[in-house]
């Protein structure tokens, strides 16, 4: 159905072409050829020198010569001021656009990208409407250029090496400390010294297992990554084309069972763009992309199990030669088993570990994740200069289709728990208990089928004209809309807006720009669905003024300022939130032993006055170039407020106005919360040629501060108010060391998180009420959830003859983290990590760094407090690359015109007081360093 609509709409759009054509009679060719000094901004490209301050851009295509990247937004916080990895100016959820259409960053690889623009301020994003209100990242892909056919080939081979594995205690040490934990709890020891001795001796690892999940028995030292890309482009004045064909594949670390052959993933992509001038007035483009991704895996989450399964629990494999020959029953098991590993072992397990990662990887089957993405854009341009000089019309239409699903062979398997006996010093298995059954159904299961369709269309009139080469005018009038529908999601994600941009600059000295949009959202009540978002910016190139002409060392200096109000429905979670509604599709109630009917449930109270949340902002920018382009500076100061964020204010109503089950609420959604952000970003670069060496050093930075300026809240103690605190505030208790003894506990405020004993964490009673509870939680620091408060990026390029060097480092400062992973918070039946060695005992009370051990849940110790808080300051050396241009070595350049080789290292180094913690993944595959060798050639 949607496809039919798409075709109809496409035809309708195509139908515009003749209409426009009919009005044109003059003869001139319009070409859409990208010029390198043009930067993509909202719905148009502008010269770099006329770019407003709140837009930054990076030319990925030219970067790739020095810095081979593997993902589209790789290390962009090291290039772009104001962008800190997951948000722009700390606002979160920006809109990512590829060639004018909302898409995912993973839809495109760096080899396909020409340029990425970061539209930060209100003036820069206004034309994109409601869903762009928190910034836009615009990726422009490469297109063909007139000229001879060019073929670029690039191939890379790399190796991923894990950075760090978590270390856990072995069986004997675990048992010893578990006994200590039992004693701490006033309980009898569980493991006898004899048992512990047997595990410690390591004589029979099958009877007394001591499994190290991170050992070389199960894991490789490294895994490979390979890619190859071919780009073919060329054309003439009439038509131009660009094609990109890429393939990449990557392995995994698991090295046993089915994982050996089912650990790789590969991605194949195909992109083709064509630009055609149909006649002097009409040109069009057709772009298509297809991406095929296949990931293979086993039916077990090995890394998650590695963080939880204790080493003594079971031996993954049971040796057949240790089964008593006379044990008939066991021999029948062996005979009937489908899974004799290496001809020597049965799969091990226990009653509680009937399914376990080892057995699952040997015998549980395998799965594939398959993703297909198709993207299709068209655009039509009509030159309307004979209606009005400088006027043109462009319309675009795009359809994307993403689909993915899993295919799996899910086999069940039997595991065996041995019963051991010892005959004169020799351990033998006297019987086996079977759990589960071997069964290979041969059925391939399809699951997680998912699709998402995006339809986007725009239409715009452009006006660009210069009068006497001094008065530069521009205008855009546009309509813009997109819609995404997703499988199993009833409502669609939509954006619809009209936009008007009016710009004028006098001699590139005085700039004024108005950009406004009429945005529409069906999420708001009738009457409030449409809002007008006006923005304006001013610019003044001081360096053009007579009084600056004499100033030496200033090549270019410009001040810009912008301000505006954007309306957005980005954070309105759903439709009809303004309506007080009841549903008759509530929880079921059955009587008379029948199925019953569904109850009526209130979903929310009514708020017919609901309106758009607003982003109001003022920003000031400075751009300059000094000392013959030796130094370039670009920076912004911004202050913005996002007001009227929509919440259901629980604190204004009794608790029973909202219940979790049955789902019910009588509370209306209202515009209430206000947030404020203030920040500065800068990009300072140095370019110099010293003798034969070209230097280029860039330093970019973003500093920002957030404040929750208005909150609906009721706290007894003012220090608990969220209002006035950062948006990413971490809250917790303040600790005062460990309880020394029973007297210390008796003389301290009582702690309400369970019974405490000496060696437990003692907390500060903030409100002096004699009881420690959540009311004593205070603001501890910023979590950096929208990027660290201070992000710095440093990039260095050096070129000497044919040899060049590149390095990129990032620094992130000012945020805090909580050591709250299962590696740190060890209690109950958890796997013991090496941190527990520093535990509190009466003997080590003075030096202990970790609370006493317990076999209960330690809710007292394992909760947010500054005991677990750490500074997340870090500097990462993200990339180093050395490239050598071999073009000079090629004698005859008829076939191969350029050639180069490079070696690079990714994620090489982290400097931080908490480096170990930052490099270690708990419960997931490890972080890796990638060492890469690449070659490229142009034909």
């Amino acid at each position, binding site marked *: 159905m949607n496809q039919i*609509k798409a075709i*109809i*709409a496409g035809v309708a759009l195509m*139908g*515009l072409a003749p*209409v426009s054509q009919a009005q044109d009679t003059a003869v001139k060719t319009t070409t859409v050829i990208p010029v390198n000094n043009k930067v993509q901004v909202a719905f148009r490209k502008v010269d770099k020198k006329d770019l407003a301050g709140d837009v930054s851009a990076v030319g990925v295509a030219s970067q790739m010569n020095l810095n081979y990247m593997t993902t589209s937004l790789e290390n962009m916080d090291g290039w772009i001021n104001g962008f800190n990895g997951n948000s722009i100016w700390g606002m979160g959820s920006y809109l990512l656009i590829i060639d004018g259409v909302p898409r995912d960053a993973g839809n495109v690889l760096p080899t396909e990208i020409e340029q990425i623009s970061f539209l930060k301020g209100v003036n820069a994003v206004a034309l994109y409407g409601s869903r762009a209100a928190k910034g836009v990242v615009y990726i422009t892909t490469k297109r063909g250029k007139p000229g001879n056919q060019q073929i670029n080939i690039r191939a890379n081979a790399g190796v991923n090496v894990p950075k760090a594995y978590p270390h856990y205690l072995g069986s004997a040490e675990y048992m010893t400390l578990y006994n200590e934990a039992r004693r701490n709890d*006033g*309980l009898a020891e569980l493991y006898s010294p004899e048992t512990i001795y047997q595990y410690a001796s390591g004589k029979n690892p099958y009877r007394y297992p001591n499994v190290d999940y991170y050992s070389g028995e199960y894991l490789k030292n490294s895994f490979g990554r390979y890619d190859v890309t071919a780009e073919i482009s060329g054309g003439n004045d009439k038509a131009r084309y660009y094609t990109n064909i890429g393939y990449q594949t990557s392995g995994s670390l698991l090295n046993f069972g089915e994982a050996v052959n089912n650990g790789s993933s590969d991605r194949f992509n195909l992109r083709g763009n064509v630009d055609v001038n149909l006649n002097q007035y009409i040109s069009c483009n057709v772009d298509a992309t297809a991406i095929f991704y296949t990931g293979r895996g086993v039916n077990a989450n090995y890394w998650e199990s590695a963080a939880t399964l204790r080493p003594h629990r079971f031996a993954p494999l049971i040796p057949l030669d240790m089964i008593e020959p006379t044990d008939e029953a066991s021999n029948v098991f062996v005979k009937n088993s489908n899974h004799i590993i290496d001809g020597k072992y049965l799969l091990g397990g226990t*009653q*509680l570990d*009937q399914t376990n990662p080892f057995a699952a990887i040997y015998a549980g089957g395998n799965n594939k994740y398959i993703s297909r993405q198709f993207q299709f854009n068209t655009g039509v341009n009509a030159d309307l200069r004979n209606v009005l000089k400088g006027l043109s019309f462009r319309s675009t239409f795009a359809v994307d289709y993403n689909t993915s699903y899993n295919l799996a062979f899910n086999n069940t398997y039997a595991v065996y728990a041995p019963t051991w006996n010892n005959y004169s010093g020799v351990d033998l298995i006297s019987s086996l208990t079977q*759990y589960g*059954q071997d069964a290979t159904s041969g059925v391939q299961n399809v699951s997680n089928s998912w699709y998402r369709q995006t339809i986007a*269309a725009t*239409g715009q009139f452009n006006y660009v004209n210069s009068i006497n080469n001094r008065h530069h005018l521009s205008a855009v009038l546009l*309509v813009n809309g997109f*819609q995404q529908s997703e499988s199993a999601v009833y*409502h*669609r994600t*939509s954006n*619809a807006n009209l936009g008007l941009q009016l710009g004028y600059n006098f001699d590139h000295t005085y700039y004024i720009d108005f950009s406004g949009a009429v945005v*529409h959202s*069906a999420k708001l009540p009738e009457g409030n*669905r449409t809002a007008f978002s006006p923005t304006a910016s001013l610019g003044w190139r001081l360096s053009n003024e007579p009084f600056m002409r004499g100033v030496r060392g200033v090549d270019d200096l410009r001040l810009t300022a912008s301000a505006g109000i954007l309306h957005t429905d980005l954070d309105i979670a759903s*439709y*009809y939130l303004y309506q007080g*509604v*009841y*549903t*008759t599709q*509530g929880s079921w*109630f*059955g*009587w*008379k*032993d029948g199925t*019953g*009917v569904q*109850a*009526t449930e209130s*979903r929310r109270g009514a708020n017919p006055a609901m309106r758009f949340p607003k982003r109001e902002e003022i920003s000031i920018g400075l751009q300059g170039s000094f000392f013959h382009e030796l130094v370039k500076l670009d920076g912004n100061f911004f202050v913005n407020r996002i007001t009227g964020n929509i919440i259901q204010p629980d*604190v*204004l*109503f*009794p*608790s*029973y106005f909202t*219940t979790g089950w049955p789902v*019910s609420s*009588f509370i209306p959604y209202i515009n209430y919360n206000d947030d404020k952000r203030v920040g500065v970003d800068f990009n300072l670069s140095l370019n110099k040629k010293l003798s034969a060496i070209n230097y280029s050093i860039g330093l970019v930075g973003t500093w920002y501060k957030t404040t929750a300026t208005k909150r609906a809240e009721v*706290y007894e103690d003012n220090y608990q108010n969220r209002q006035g605190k950062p948006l990413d505030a971490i809250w917790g208790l303040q600790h005062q060391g460990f309880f020394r003894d029973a007297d210390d506990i008796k003389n301290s405020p009582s702690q*309400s*998180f*369970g*019974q405490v004993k000496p060696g437990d964490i003692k907390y500060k009673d903030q409100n002096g009420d004699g009881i420690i509870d*959540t*009311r004593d939680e205070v603001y501890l620091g910023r979590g950096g959830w929208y990027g660290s408060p201070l992000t710095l990026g440093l990039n260095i390029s050096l070129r000497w003859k044919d040899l060049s060097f590149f390095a990129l480092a990032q620094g992130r400062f000012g945020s805090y983290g909580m050591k709250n992973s299962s590696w740190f918070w060890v209690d*109950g039946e958890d796997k013991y990590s090496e941190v527990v060695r520093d535990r509190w005992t009466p003997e080590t009370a003075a030096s202990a760094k970790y609370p006493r051990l317990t076999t209960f*849940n330690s*809710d007292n110790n394992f909760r947010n407090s500054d005991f677990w808080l750490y500074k997340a300051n870090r500097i990462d050396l993200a990339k180093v690359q050395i490239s050598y241009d071999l073009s000079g070595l090629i004698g005859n350049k008829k076939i191969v015109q350029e050639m180069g080789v490079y070696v690079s290292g990714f994620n090489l180094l982290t400097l931080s007081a908490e480096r170990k913690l930052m490099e270690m993944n708990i419960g997931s595959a490890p972080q890796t360093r990638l060492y890469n060798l690449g070659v490229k050639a142009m034909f």
Partner: protein
Amino acid sequence: MKRNIIIFLSSVFLLTGCKDLLTPEIENNQELGNYPPNNAGLPFGVLLNGYNRIPTNSWSFNDVATDDAVTNDQNNTFLKIANGQWTANNNPLNQWGNAYAAIQYLNITLRDVDTVKWAADPVVSKLFAMRIKGEACGLRALFYYHLLQAHAGMSESSAILGVPINLDVQGTNSDFNKPRSNFDACMKQIYSDLAQADQLLPTDYENIPNASQIPPKYGTVTKEQYDRAFGSAFRGFLTGRIAKAIRSKAALLAASPAFSSGSTTTWADAANYAGEVIALKGGISALSANGLTWYSNASEIAGLADGANPSEILWRNNYGDNRDLEQANFPPSLFGNGRINPTQNLVDAFPMANGLPITDAASGYDASNPYAGRDPRLRMFILVNGGTAGPNNTTINTAADGPTNDALNKVETSTRTGYYLRKLLRQDVNLNPNSANNQRHYKPHIRYTEIFLNYAEAANEAWGPTGTGAYSFSAYDVIKAIRTRAGVGTTNGDPHLEQCRGSKEQMRALIRNERRIELCFEGFRFWDLRRWNAGLGETAKGVSIRNNNYSVVNVENRQFQPFMIYGPIPYGEILKFSSLEQNKGWR
């Protein structure tokens, strides 16, 4: 030029069909009022919302925060409150949100019930309105009872406070800052609602043989009209009988030591209300013979149909075929998670089969063979070392040196006390993943045994062990019947019971012990201890068996403060509404 724009806009809107772009796609949202005559689903669903919130719809197992049991689930919220985490801010027994939300929905029902056309036939519609009004009143009383149980308590000035009484639908502009009514006012409200329910509802929902059976309160209606409104199709909904039983529960609470100083309900009232339900059932002889094993009477449960109740059950929810309880509580060797572990304290509460407590020198209790010669209910309810369980009557070894995972503390699903739960579980469930099967279960809201025990407790206090008030049976008679059914003291004339007969205090202790045993693991003990002002700090104990030597071990402390005989008002509500007073001790 305009033409272009028009063409363009129309093409954009054509392609999107306007859904969610300009106007939102239609959702099946409805509003109250103006109920359409052909669809009473919306207003009826409002009443069902109240039913969905009945706390006894599912098992809570707050018994693991008492001296009866512990759990091996370290994340259990009841375990945490027993271990000192119970605060006004952290209250897993909180009824405030659930019960008041239910009351809000029931108030909507009571406001709108007369404006709804429940059926095309105006007579039937009026009967429906009577029934629904009666149900809503009865349910509202039930929720106020649960609110009082969980939140009523003593103020700083030692007054017994109830909870605020909301009888009107609250909107966003209502005044929420209402003080708590005193306890007795809440009880009066409960009685008045129950009286109205009893007046409007039939005793049971049954089709009647002929019109002469129609109670006069429904006026002149035909059999068909009566059956449509009050027939067997509504079994499971609240009836007059249920309203009477709720009154018995509420009165027992109000007459109990923890609340009696703030209550005008006397023990005699409580005895009379329970007696009324028992008399309606048919007197003392109506105590269901197989009521002890109500959860495992396989053929009886298999025969359940159309909401009919077994003789032990006064009110229950729908049956379901599943194995969730067994999955949670079977011992690990039977592939269960061994969750609820009965304590040594509870095991010791079971007398010998001869009726004598194990502490009695004459009882014949042998500490080295502790499960021999005991009250048959012990092995029925609790899986002791050497007891059998599961579809194959597997002998379970819970000794600390036992070879399987059933051994004390062996793995995370092992028992922590040396005992596993046996009550409530169907032993004919097989959990072995290779051949797992379900069995039929149901959850009672009210069992007759509870009402009998309510009577015994109240009658003993009001009239002494052998006093009968207006009825023909005494506390002694009830306990005798219950112990006889259990097989206790049946061969020797139950000397312990006969001894208790002579003393109200001894009888009280015996009744409380029988209540503990009969109703164990059904969510009674936690609140019973509190309404009796009984000690809350008794350490939960277990048994460690090595080489056949039994030694009692401490398993878990009970960190309750004395003021915790009353639950807290939610901290957040105290903060928001200044007129709400917290119970003494809670902060």
